Each structure stands twice: as C-alpha cells, then as structure tokens.
C-alpha cells in the first residue's frame, strides 16, 4: 500500500513551550516557524480559560495538515505544490511565483506568505530530513515528546494505534480534506 506519512500530536503531553516553532525556524529558515502553538479557547496565548481556580489551558500546535485531498495543490497555478507518493504535501520554493492563491485555498491558514522572498512558505514535514531517514526537526526537539510521526497506512504502526484510540481528532474534518495530522485530546481532570 502507498505510504501516508502523518503526525499524531498529543495535547496531553504538549507543554506549549514553542520549542517546535523555534526548531522549525532554525531548520527551515522560514519567515516564522511553520508550526505554531495556539492556546485553546483562551483570551490570549499562554493564559487559561475559566474563572480562578476553575481553569483550563490546552495547547494546540498547528501546521500544514498534509491533507489527503489538498485544496492548495489543486489551486496552485504553477504546480509548485504537489502531493508526494509518501503523502507529503510539498511546496517547491523554486517554482512558487508568490501569487498567494494557495493561502486562500487552504482552510487551515497553514500557508504563510514571506514578503522578503515574495513566496509562499509552509511545513514540508522536513522532507529533506525524511528523505534521509530522519524525523522532522520539530519531532526530535519536542520537550513534551508530544509529536509522533509515522505511516498512517501501516495498521501495525505506532501512530495508527494512536489514531485508533477513542477521541482522536482531525482539525475541522468538515472541510473534507482528510488531514494527515491527528490530535489526541488532553485527559479530562479526574479531580480529588
């Protein structure tokens, strides 16, 4: 079966430290890190939701979803965006002409415009590392050990097992793009 590389990000293990964002910028030299950490339902980043002391604070790292049906690939007029055989949605810097149509097409706001280069940028899942048998840099730099990579089409693989656990979710599945980035939700507090 064809490979479908994807990620499972475990919100329970994510401590919101943003090492992934810094790591991405170092590895890929983007205008900013292509993986960014949101604080869910919060008035602002790194602040909780609720009323003291009844509070919640959950972190959600977001990046290109490497969708099965990527609207950005269809939208790109110059074929700078392609769906690779291993499932990666790959943006080829050289081919991009900076038209920004992909930014509109992506339902996840995952594509960033770099005004210095006048080109679009996004997570390529560190394809240059994957092709050398290495894990993406954000995965190895994750302090919480919250990001898992693997082949979603390998039913025996670790990430397929994580995906099959109850409550695993994709962001906005209604878009119909079938993201290859899955999330494990945080554990509900059990109380005293």
């Amino acid at each position, binding site marked *: 079966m064809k490979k479908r590389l994807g990620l499972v990000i475990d919100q*329970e*293990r994510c*401590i*919101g*430290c*943003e*090492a992934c*964002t*810094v*790591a991405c*910028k*170092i*590895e890929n030299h983007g205008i*900013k890190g292509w993986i960014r950490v949101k604080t869910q339902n919060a*008035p602002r980043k790194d*602040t*909780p*939701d*609720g*009323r*003291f*002391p009844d*509070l*919640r*604070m*959950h972190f959600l790292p977001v990046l290109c979803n490497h969708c099965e049906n990527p609207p950005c690939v269809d939208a790109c007029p110059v074929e700078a965006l392609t769906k690779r055989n291993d499932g990666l949605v790959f943006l080829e810097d050289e081919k991009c002409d900076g038209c920004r149509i992909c930014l509109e097409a992506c339902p996840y706001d995952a594509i960033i415009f770099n005004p210095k280069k006048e080109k679009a940028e996004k997570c390529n899942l560190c394809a240059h590392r994957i092709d050398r048998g290495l894990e993406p*840099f954000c995965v*190895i*730099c994750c*302090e*919480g*050990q919250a990001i898992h990579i693997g082949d979603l089409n390998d039913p025996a693989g670790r990430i397929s097992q994580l995906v099959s656990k109850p409550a695993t979710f994709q962001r906005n599945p209604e878009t119909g793009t079938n993201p290859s980035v899955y999330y494990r939700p*945080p*554990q509900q*507090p*059990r*109380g*005293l």
Partner: protein
Amino acid sequence: MASNQKTRPVRTVCPAHCGIDACGILAHVKEDRVVKVAPADFPNPRYRRICLRGLSSLEITYHPDRLKYPMKRAGERGSGNFERITWDEALGSIAEKFKAIATKYGWPAVAWVLGGPGAGTTKFGAYLRLASLTRSTRVSAWGYGDSALPCGSRVLFGSQFPYAFLFGSLFSSSSAPEILVVWGANPGESQPLNLMRPIMDAKEKGALLIVIDPRFTVTASKADAYLGVKPGTDTALSLGLMNVIFRENFQDDAFIQKHTVGPYLVRTDTGEFLRAKDIGLQDGMDYIIWDIVSESPRSRSTANVKPATSGTFTVNGVACKTSLQLLMDLAAEYPPARTAEITGISSDIITRLALRIGSAKSVTFVTHMGFTRTYHGDISLRALGTVAAVTGNVSATFRGGHLPAVLNWKPFLHADPQKPSYTRMGILQLYDAVTSGKPYPVKAVWFSFINFLNQCADSGKIANEFFPELEFIVSTDLFMTPTARYADILLPVCSYLEFSDLIPFPYPYLQLQQKVMTPLYESKSDVDIAAELAGRLGFSEYFDGGEESFIDLILASEDPSLEGITREKLKQGPMPLKFIPKMDQEIDIPFSTPSGKIEIYSEKLRGVGQALPVFLEHLETPLKPEGKKYPLAFIQGHSRFRTHSMYANVTSLLEFNPEPVLEINPRDAQERNIADEDPVTVFNDRARTTLRARVTEGVRPGVVNISEGWWIDQFKEGSVNHLTHAVMNPVQEKIYEPNMHMNDVAVEVIKYQEVES
C-alpha cells in the same frame, strides 16, 4: 552564499543554569562557524532533549552586542561608558588593585561573588582555587533564592537536598506512584524541567497529578486537581493535611517508628529530647522511647521493645510527650476550616486531599526552590517533608545525594592543603560586609556567572548603598548587563561553544562540554582568565594545563562511581556513573541528622520556637489584605523564555514574549480600574516599577506576578528586584545560610501616570 564545505558534527553540552538539565548538544560546524545546534543522542533516548532557549543559543554566541574586548570604566559607574584596553592592562591592573586592597584591609576584603555556573564545574572551580590560594572571601550564591530549601532539608533530613527522598523514585522507578503532588514548582516551564517527562509518564501510567501553586501554570494545566494556594501559607496547608491524616489515623506508624524521631520522648519542661542520663539509664545521651510492653522508658537501642508513637508520659517525675505527639498537638490546631481561612483552599478540598494522601499506597512530592523563597521558606519545606515522612512517603537514600558529590572538589575548595583556604560568606551577608563592614569589610568584588544588580534582592539598595562602598568591581560577562555597567574592569568571556568543561549532568551521566569553535573577538574562558590572573598573583603553577587539566583533576576523586571515566572517553559521548543507587527502595542508611532519623522535631531549634514546623506569618505577604497599605502579594515565576536573566536579549525569543508584564487577576484589576495592556505601576516603600498589565485568571486574586529575569533597562522604570527586600532570617543564618525572600513581598498596583516634573 554558503560554501560547499560539509558541516561536521561536534558533541557538546548546553550548560545553562536552567535546572541543570545539561542537554547534550550536537553542534553542526562549518569551517569555524556553528551553523546549527540540535539535540544530541544519549544511550537512554529519554535524555535526548533541547529547549527553545538551547535552540536559540547561537543567537547568544553570535549576538551583535557581545562584549568583544576588555574594557575599563570611563564614566560614572552605571553609565555604561567604557574604553577598550588590552588583556595585559586589564589583568595587570586587577592584580595591582587586589594587592593594594589586601595590603590595606587584608585579603578577605577581596570577594569572589560567583553566581550560578549552571552545570559547569571547572569554570567555577578555577575561581574557587584562586580564592583559596589568596585566602580571600568566597561568596556563596545559595542565598540568592536557594538557601532556604537546604536549610529546611538539613534540619529534617540532614541533607543539602530533599529531592532524592521526596521524588528520587521518579528517576528510577518502573512503577508510577499512586499520587504525584507538585507543590510550588513548575517543572513544565522551569526547574526541575527534567522532571516533566517522568511526571507525564507517571500520569500516563495512572498517577493522579495534584498541583499546588498560586498561579495556574503549565504544570497546573496538566493536573487532575489544581489548588490555588495563597503565597506563603504552605506550612499551614501541610499542618491542615496532617490534621486530617492524624484524625483519621492514616499515619504510617511503622515508618514513623523506623525512620523518624516520632517515638522519641521530649521533655515538656525544656523541649529537649529526654536522654538516658536524665533517667539514670546507662546509655548516656541515647534517646528514650516509651516501651508499651513493659510500660517503662527505655533507651532507643534496647532490644525487644515496642515504642509508643504517640502519648504523654511521666518519667521520673518529668512530663514527656513523644515528638509525634507534639506534632499531632500542633496539627490539631489546624482543622480544615481554619486551614481554609489561612490558605484560601476550601476545607472540603483540604480534607479530600488529606484523605487521598493518607490512604494512598505511594505519594511522590515534587517541590523546588521557589516554594521556599518566603521568610520562613525553610519551615515550608520541613512541613511538606513532614507530611511525606508521617505518611511513609520518603523513599530510598540517594547516597551522595547529588552527582557532583562524587567529584574531586578538594583541589578547588582547598588548593594548598598545608594552608587555610578562603573565608566563606553568604551573599545576603555580603550586603552588610560591604555597607557596614560587618563582620569584616569587603572592598573589592569579582562578579562571574551573576547579574547581581538585576537578580539580587533590593536593587535600589545595591545601586545606592552597596556599589558606592566598593573600591573596585570586576565583572566577567558576555554582555553589557545592568551589573556590568557598574564594573571598573569588564572582561569578555566565552559562550558555551567556545570552551571546554566537565558536566556532571543529567544524572546519572557525565558529559564533556567540548570547545566547538575558536573564541570570538578577544573573549576568553573563565579558566583562562583565572589562570592569567593567578600568574600575576604568583600562583601560576596551580593553573598549568588550563581547562583540560582541571577536567582531569576533578575526575580524579577515586570514587568508585567514576572508575574508567576519562576526558578522552567522554569525547565520544556521555558516560553513566558506574554505580547508580536505586532510589525506589527502602531507606537503608541513617540520615545525617543528629539522631540519624528524619527530624520531624528539631531539638536545636527549640530555642527559637521552631522545633516543629510551625506556621509563622511571613514578613510582608499579607494574610489579611483588607485595609493594608500594600495588600497584594508579589511573586516572580520563572519564564520558559529566559534562564534567570540569560536570553532576555535574544531576538527570536523576544518575538514570542516582547516585554515584561504584570499578571493580575481581573477582580483585582477591576477594583483598580486597570484594563489588559494598560501601563501600570507596581510599588511599595522601596520602589516603583512600571510595565504593562496582563489581566488574567491565571493568577490568584490578591496575588500579582512578574516573571523574573527581565533586565532593568527593559522596564519603563524600576524592575522586579527593585521591589524585593534584603532582610535576613537569623534562624536560616544559624542553620546554614540566609535566603533572599523574593516571593514574600507586598505591593500595591495603580494605573501608570506620568510623573509631572
């Protein structure tokens, strides 16, 4: 354009003072330039790690503001005006000045103020060796926030650190504890960061995670239950928990008998332990228990006795209680309702937590330094440790307690065994030595690994009363920090990629911090600086061979744990200690306390009324804020964007977190007509500090927080430590070393108004 030359990987270590995690770093080097840093491998993959600061560390090495050459002051102290001089002139003038001061006041008037060397060893050792040879003053930096925890730990456990006893099992246990209580610590963002993975592993295996903190931290966000305690009331909370535990008879009597002074009789007339000689028994100073079989007093070493754990007894006409009984009597004064009133935690939650702790098979308590940065922080630690002890949740003795204990520190602490060494002084005691000449005058200071003005208590006092009394100030640094501005001679040091050091972390590994690149500009390593100064003071033979010989020297302790570990082998990668004691087994050696037991009752502190972990109101933090001039408790959490004041000038981290903010609860903000983002002034009698408000539910009402480490020049006015105080706790001074109580400060906050001139 980048050259086609291939990059070569060099393994080194980030030695930052972050929690001594000492992440292994793989530096990618192209020619003589480091182009990337990545986490390096460990034999156990759990230790492969890096953080956002370590990832940004090249921005320190290649920062445009790095100090590039030695300088001497060319304007008023603090003005930042300097002129370039040569190393020869710098070190020559330091040697001359030190000798002149020593001639006039004696060598102890020269003080080495060495802050946190992080995980480094030889760079610290070099200055200690010089202090030892010159018999000058070595200023211990424990007191700048970190001495109350050892004070408490020394009294209770007889050890510098309580960590192994309380949570050592997290490092070696295969099974998770039933309950994990993280109390006054935020390992998700700060020390001990190396615990966050094991904590989350334990939670995954089923441990119930409880977090107690005035702020809803990252760690709290992972908790099954969060208790938002009032700052400085932790001892009351511990006593409240014990109240319920004793009421329900949930204490672990077997553990108390075996490992604590609980059954030892205390004379109610003097507060001293009853001794064999007091009742005419032969064993002299031996402790006495009440044997419930023979219904008589016996010395503790008597065979076949069954000691009473609690109770009141009259022995030879002397009224006595077991020390556990005294603790029970104290805890009886803290029923849940009263404890709730003091701590701000509901009585229902207190009761339920106590019942959970009391009935659990195993509880692991995690705490750290911040918890003890209140006036009676040493007692807070003792109280928490006492909860652990009476419930039998103190695990195995971590022999040596800490890996550096197996290193050969003698040649640094005592360079010439034939002669006396340096005089040791606590950092808070240095304030008096400089400003009032007590116990003796200090006239020259050497600052290394420290941003003294920025990070020590009462910055205004330092600038206005302390610095002016000094005849000579030397500072080694990478940057023109707020402290460096006050130096008379300022020396540029290497970043971690530019020199070698031995790193005895993360436990149980040793690593080599390898020099990866040629030092930039004219910067030198601390070992080289110390060596060159030593030459000018007549001690060059003690510094032959530089960093490498020091690494060999510190490894030569003959401790069997270090057998076979050499500098050469460490170049290949980290090496574990040869003997790694298990930390999840029963205690097998005596505690280093006077009794050899966990001292839930400390005889030597009876004179100051602190034999038991009594709850004493703190210095400034108001228990009842109503009507107070300064009603808000001011605390300073640690931020993941900085390691103390390091990284405060790193651009990519400032993009995430551009400026200091005051965290204030919406209820307090509303009362003061403060909106999110408003500029506000935090003030007390010592200072005004102005910055933006962050109105958030993440901090308890009545408490405000500014994360520590921002540089003074990053505030509109004032700074964190302009608000703190340098008051000494004499009991801590007696036990070990007095601490700065940064989390025991009262303030008021108003909307900022331009001051009319």
